[in-house]
């Protein structure tokens, strides 16, 4: 698994719960190092082991944890770069939803060896969508649910999100738009490059 993903999990734990908790996670997962490198490829078995250890150490259910990580990655000030990159997907939240199909390709454009699960958006009406997420590991659906929740907030949209479980190796997240101008858009300045 790509270091960016593992590093994201590490950032979530250290920024939200402190470095001591992260050390407990690395011990529990049996890692012989404490810091993930963002631009490094790790064995695929490492990520599930780390996630299981995070659940143990923080005493939180897996699904809830994945959703929180997703929200953290987009909404935390320290990882502003990711929010901006996602905002390139569309001017409105609905444009953004439609851009999700391209997300794995966009990610690979930036980091060639970064593999994200294939995503597919189904539009059932102007207000109702469902996102199909073909992740290799269970739980990506919850992570994207967290990402969507944070992005809805970013666009100032009120949306109801519901994880519908999985069928045939694909997790389904239902998205219902309740109000498209619920709060003010956090804004996206095309030229304001974040470092």
């Amino acid at each position, binding site marked *: 698994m790509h270091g*960016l993903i593992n590093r994201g999990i590490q950032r979530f734990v250290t920024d939200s719960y402190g470095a001591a908790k992260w050390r407990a996670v690395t011990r529990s997962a049996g890692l012989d190092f404490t810091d993930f*490198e*963002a*631009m*490094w490829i790790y064995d695929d078995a490492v990520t599930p082991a780390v996630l299981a250890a995070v659940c143990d150490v923080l005493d939180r259910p897996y699904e809830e944890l994945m959703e929180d990580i997703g929200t953290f990655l987009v909404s935390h000030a320290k990882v502003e*770069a990711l929010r*901006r*990159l996602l905002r*390139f997907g569309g*001017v409105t939240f609905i444009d953004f939803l439609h851009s999700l199909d391209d997300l794995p390709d*966009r990610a690979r*454009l*930036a*980091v060639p060896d970064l593999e994200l699960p294939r995503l597919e958006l189904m539009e059932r009406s102007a207000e109702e969508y469902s996102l199909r997420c073909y992740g290799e590991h269970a739980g990506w659906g919850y992570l994207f649910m967290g990402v969507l929740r944070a992005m809805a907030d970013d666009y100032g949209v009120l949306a109801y999100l519901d994880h519908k479980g999985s069928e045939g190796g694909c997790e389904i997240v239902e998205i219902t738009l309740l109000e498209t101008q619920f709060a003010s858009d956090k804004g996206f*300045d*095309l*030229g*304001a*490059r*974040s*470092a």
Partner: protein
Amino acid sequence: MHVVLGRCGTVRFAGPTAQKIYPKGLIGRRFLDVFEIKRPREITDIESLYDRTGARLNLRFCDPPHRQLKGVVMEGPEVGQMTVNLSFGISIVDAVSEYKLTAADFAATDLTVEMLYLVEAKSAAMEASHQLNERLQVARVQAEEQALTDTLTGLRNRRAMDYELAEIISERQPFTLMHADLDFFKAVNDTLGHAAGDFVLQAVAKIMTDETREVDVVARVGGDEFVLLIKGTEDHILIDRIAQRIIKRLGEPMEFAGDVCRISGSIGTVIAGDYPQPTADLLLGDADAALYAAKNAGRSMHVFFQPDMRTASKIA
């Protein structure tokens, strides 16, 4: 973005993005007063521009900072009018923040926003790689600090010697500690240069390694200071023989790049068995005092420590 020009080259209409990039107002201005056409060079007036419909134009603003644009001129939309389609090319990255452009300023099929995404994503990825390099650099410096080898001579360094000395004391094994120091080394360095100095240190290292056994420890602990731990023996005669052999060889001329380097060495020695409770500080301090006595007695001397040397070296 585009502008429409009348027959004599005056801007009649400017699209919303074109208006943004020239806040003084384009309408009514002569096109060639605002933009300078850099290529094709033949275009010097409006007639020659109108003759080049479909050609790729390189333009720049007449006003500083003379931002560059690309363009193409076409006839229309009305008879006698010309339309100039403009774009920023790769200077778009700066133009976007300068003119506060948004996604709405680009056509749905225009890939500019994708390009901006890519620039930003690549910068973020580069930044992450850059941080990795920085961390590796720090790790390298740390590793060097923790290293046990003196990189110039291949001998053990001060750290390694401290560690070995502590180890051997705690094992309560018999051993001898020699503190050696070179005479005239500074002169070699000053007159023949650092390369000669480095050569001498390497030669000295070889002599000391040759004259001791594998189990013994030879360390360079300072510029031209060495500590030798001779394990398993406290025999004065044997130790003195080793020391004398080293001193003799140090005194032989060494040739470096056609120059002859002359140095000599002095050695002060302590025997661990002479102490009921040897400690590293005590042994090193007394060996230093013995070395001091050896130097005072003349060059190329080997001296065993005697308790009266402690006060002697302190007074000096």
